[in-house]
């Protein structure tokens, strides 16, 4: 265990340099790129947070939820409705949106954590669609397919660049917290459950409770992403809860590499920017995206980041005998 921790600290220090590069790039970016790509960058960060919270359940815990968009949408709807209908303060609405997503995560999670594998995926999909249908059809309360308009951030965040920095800050903090959760005893227990849930149970660990806690944490961070999105887009629409939206983090995570912390982020950036770039001259981006997914699945098992890591580890292994 101690050796493991040392190993981690070592790799953490090794990692630090490119983390600094990334943060610096994130800070400088708005001054370099056009306003269009600044919006895309903001979107990519929000979707990355969505994908990271998805991967807490998928990569770390080993279960694939296919209804996460419901929590994303609930975060957005929760904050938007409190803000526009009850005229509640922006920050209170923002926090309440996260709370609503977490609460529904608890309600849905209680039922879902008893299942494994494909049954877990389908039950989360069913609950996600249930929440989607209710919000979509309950026109008097939620505005139905019109969604909710006029979700404005406070005055000092109205400028796109200011809001971008706000997104960057929230993303950075959330990513740090999620990283700490994954590398805590709690996170290691989730990983043990992924590897062998029966043995973990024999160690006296209440699996269902751990899964439920992870599910609620994931729902809360997904809701946070949704609450970030609503004022960014100035509105929310029911499409934020649809199952197609639930597929996006799945796609991004497997594309980037589920086994690595930043895999989902890489996948999301790739998808978001390829999408934005392709929309410039073709309506047929889904076919390109679909083909891209197939190519990655066939050629790069473990995702793009997983493939790079594997290559690097192989090279290290080859070098070691000569060093030693």
């Amino acid at each position, binding site marked *: 265990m101690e050796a493991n921790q040392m190993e981690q600290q070592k790799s953490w220090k090794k990692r630090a340099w490119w983390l600094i590069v990334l943060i610096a790039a994130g800070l400088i970016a708005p001054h370099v790129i056009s306003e269009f790509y600044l919006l895309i960058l903001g979107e990519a960060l929000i979707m990355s947070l969505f994908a990271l919270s998805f991967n807490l359940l998928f990569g770390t815990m080993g279960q694939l939820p296919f209804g996460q968009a419901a929590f994303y949408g609930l975060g957005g709807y929760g904050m938007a409705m409190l803000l526009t209908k009850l005229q509640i303060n922006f920050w209170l609405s923002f926090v309440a949106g996260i709370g609503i997503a977490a609460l529904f995560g608890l309600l849905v999670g209680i039922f879902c954590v008893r299942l494994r594998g494909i049954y877990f*995926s*389908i*039950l989360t999909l*069913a609950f996600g669609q249930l929440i989607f*249908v*209710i919000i979509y*059809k309950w026109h008097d309360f939620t505005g139905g397919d019109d969604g909710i308009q006029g979700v404005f951030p406070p005055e000092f965040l109205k400028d796109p660049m200011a809001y971008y920095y706000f997104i960057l800050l929230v993303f950075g903090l959330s990513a740090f917290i999620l990283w700490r959760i994954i590398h805590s005893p709690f996170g290691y227990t989730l990983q043990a459950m992924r590897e062998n849930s029966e043995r973990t149970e024999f160690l006296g660990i209440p699996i269902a409770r751990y899964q439920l806690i992870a599910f609620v944490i994931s729902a809360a961070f997904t809701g946070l992403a949704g609450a970030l999105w609503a004022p960014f887009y100035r509105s929310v629409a029911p499409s934020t809860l649809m199952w197609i939206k639930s*597929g996006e983090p799945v796609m991004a995570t497997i594309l980037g590499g589920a086994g690595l912390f930043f895999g989902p982020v890489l996948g999301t950036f790739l998808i978001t920017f390829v999408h934005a770039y392709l929309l410039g001259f073709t309506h*047929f981006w889904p076919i390109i995206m679909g083909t891209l997914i197939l190519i990655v699945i066939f050629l790069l098992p473990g995702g793009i980041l997983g493939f790079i890591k594997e290559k690097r580890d192989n090279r290290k292994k080859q070098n070691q005998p000569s060093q030693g």
Partner: protein
Amino acid sequence: MSFDILFNQFLSGIARGALLFLVASGLSLTFGVLRVLNFAHGSLYMLGAFISYSIWKWLLIPVVGFYVATLLTAFIMGGIGLLIEYYILRRLYARGWPEQLLATYALILIITDIVKWFWGGEFLSIPRPKPFTGAVFLFGFPFPSYNFFIILLGLALVVFLWWLVFKTHLGDIIRAAAHDRDMVSALGIPIPWLFTWIFALGAMIAGLSGAVTAPYGAIALGMDIEIIIECFAVVVIGGMGSLPGTLLGALIVGQVYSFGIMYKPELALAFIFMVMAIVLIIRPWGIFGRPER
């Protein structure tokens, strides 16, 4: 609420259930044997509907045109299924199911765009074929006679699949492969070959059911997503991979949908998901399914 209204609703539910069985049986068959949940099954169904429209329009034979188009579509879709299994799914059996799921998800994106490319975004429809153009009056209510065609077709498929799975040698292999794939392989039966043909059969059924929905007047983009979600509900309620379960699930979902529409139209879908959630909570592997190990 008088009896005749309830009976009419019940009959609509049966027709709906028959249609759902047509689509879901292919999904269930594929999952039962290949253990791959084909997200793109609804897309194959949609592609079938569009292809049958084009064949029907190209043939323009008065009475039998629809039936010929439906049959041709089924075979074309079978061929497409063959190609998909051989070139895509076959490479993924050794991987985890999340990758298989994602691959079929990618197929949804690809097929949607192909349909958009060839047929554009508008609604298309085929007139109801003779002799199912009119309505039958039951207790004074008009009931589209085409619904009886769907119910008959559903029954025919039930009988065919029952015969295939329980009465033929291939059926023995199918059931054995669903039970223990490695053992069947060890007995010298070429599993990859079996998988290809089962997937092709599933695609064929999807194409057939897409073709026969065309006269309902709703060939459009998005029909894939609509049906696949309901089919998931069907196979999950009945038990994934079980054909009797799929039949029962289709009948349940058909009735829930039909009476749900009568009670509160906007929540009909929500009722289906509620039933599905309840079944999954009580019996996670469905009514006729078996627990996965």
